[in-house]
């Protein structure tokens, strides 16, 4: 039997299919303005990619910020349980999951069976979320996916002391004015975000092995900054961005 998971984030919409408890296919598109349309589109395209019909899908679970808009899903579930379940499905040894999403960052502690033992999310402030990185990339006129490459070329990371995204942005602008090297500022931004995530990880008393999920996991510099801050090994799989959708599909199979 085939099950689907759809994860509508603030930036990207992801879909995953599983068949006989094995990953069967995934797909990612950008969310755009209309999350419902994005849900329909990403689902249609993943089906086309694998070449199966909609009626062969037994159950669908939706997740992410737009989860409630996916009106054809059988059930909605939060990103926390989906990321936890997805991480456990991909690697059953995983105990800690760090996910930097567009609006929310989270640290999740799993028990040996992949159940959620505890989780912590950022407070209302956007510091340490994907949004923080986006704002900074914009201020520095760098593409979001190039941030990591810039950070890796830093020789002495700048120190960003503001916690608030808005204040941090003006701090960055004054650093630009003071002619700090762009690479150093960007490295400083990564360290600042890592410091915020470390607080979440400490709150749940995260255990190894830790994996990072979500789109930001593609950013190697972010992983390096987190490793340094947490003092532990952190890995990211090839399908880190699709992880929430994969977890949703696994949960659909348990409905």
């Amino acid at each position: 039997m085939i099950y689907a998971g759809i994860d509508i984030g603030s930036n990207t919409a992801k879909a995953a299919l599983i068949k006989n408890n094995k990953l069967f296919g995934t797909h990612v598109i950008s969310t755009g303005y209309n999350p419902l349309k994005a849900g329909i589109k990403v689902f249609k395209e993943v089906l086309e990619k694998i070449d199966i019909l909609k009626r062969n899908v037994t159950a669908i679970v939706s997740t992410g910020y737009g989860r409630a808009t996916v009106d054809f899903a059988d059930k909605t579930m939060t990103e926390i349980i989906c990321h936890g379940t997805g991480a456990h499905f991909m690697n059953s040894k995983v105990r800690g999951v760090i996910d930097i999403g567009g609006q929310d960052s989270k640290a999740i502690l799993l028990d040996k069976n992949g159940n959620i033992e505890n989780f912590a999310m950022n407070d209302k402030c956007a510091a340490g979320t994907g949004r923080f990185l986006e704002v900074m990339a914009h201020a520095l006129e760098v593409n979001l996916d190039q941030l990591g490459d810039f950070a890796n070329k830093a020789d002495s990371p700048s120190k960003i002391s503001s916690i608030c995204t808005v204040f941090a942005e003006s701090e960055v602008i004054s650093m630009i004015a003071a002619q700090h090297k762009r690479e150093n500022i960007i490295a400083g931004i990564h360290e600042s975000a890592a410091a915020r995530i470390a607080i979440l990880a400490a709150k749940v008393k995260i255990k190894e092995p830790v994996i990072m999920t979500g789109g930001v996991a593609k950013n190697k510099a972010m992983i390096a900054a987190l490793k340094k801050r947490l003092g532990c090994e952190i890995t990211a799989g090839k399908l880190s961005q699709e992880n929430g959708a994969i977890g949703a599909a696994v949960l659909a199979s348990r409905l």
Partner: protein
Amino acid sequence: MQDKSSDKSAEKRKIKSAKIMREIMTTYYLDALTAGQNSKQVAWITSGGPVEPLVAMDIIPVYPENHSAMIGASKMGEDLCSKAEDMGYSSDLCSYARADISCSIVKGGPLGGLPKPDMLICCNNICGTVLKWYEIQARLYKVPLFILDTPVCHTQYSPEIAKYVQAQVKEYIIFLEKITKRDFDYDRMVKVGKLAVEAQKLWKKILNTTANKPSPMSAFDAFFFLALIVTLRGTQTAVDFYTKLLEEMEQRIKEDISIIPDEKYRLLWDNLPLWYQLKWLSNKFSDHNACLVADTYTTAWCSALNYTDENDFLNSIAQAYTRIYLNIGIDQMADQVLDMIKFYDVDGFIMHSNRSCKPYSFGQMDIMKIVQEKAKIPVLMIEADMVDPRSFSQSQVETRIDAFMEIIKQRSN
């Protein structure tokens, strides 16, 4: 067909006493608003202040905090809070204070403002904010202010504290005699004291009925029914009302009438409610088949019963009012929370980190750790404010509550 029967069961679930309570509160506020015409005096008093001597002296007590909660529930908090900010008050100031201060000037809110006070009674057993807040109001209304200073009992109620507070209770009586130009009525005080204790005992019994499974009422109901124990403590009205309410709860238990349709999970709440989001929150929980069976906030109005002596009420005021929930150490607060977790047999603990109320929210992290360690139940912290909706993000809070409930469900499987 189905709609009709679910309508019927929703009707059955409604708490009938709510209507009477609304009438009592309307009468109370009408009395207060027309006090001047009836040559009665009005005292504004903090929610944790000793009200009984006022009742004994026939002074009408008015609670700005209760009024601010009404402002929040009427969704008028944002407007009044931002007006206070326009007057120069910081957005970090407690939203009860902001709403009340601006309401005094612009005469807004659901009542068009509170009746002008003849005196102000401020007890700092709940927080330090009330000191400055009442000083501001004393200047505005040009009325005398009495401050009852109750030191925090981090570990114990020491003889020094006892002596210090007791002396102030005496000064309080002298203050009232001076303002009313009447002798203090000690006989009446004995009666009022007995009524106050009786009402608190009833309140405690009412809150305890939610230990029943399924619960006959929820903390959301307690937030509503709380108004009487706060404002009319020491009167026969409060005793009569709570006697009826208790009967209704006991009857509901007998007939197996629960407040939410299908109670599967039981939760404990910490801190003040989100007055402007009560309905949304209570629906949110009942959609998860979860009932908020108890809270640390409404319990505060009976938690000092152990220190109250109904036969020597006036002399026990000092201790009873000094040792309330917000004026004790973190360890004792955590002990009370752990007791409640056991007594109500809850599956999870939700802590509202309230931007307004610093004394309530400071220390929550420690209590959270203690509870996680000792009670081993999931704990969720959500950030918001009791009156100012600008400090609340619905979608963020929703995701956190949904995730929290998923954990609780996963655990119970």
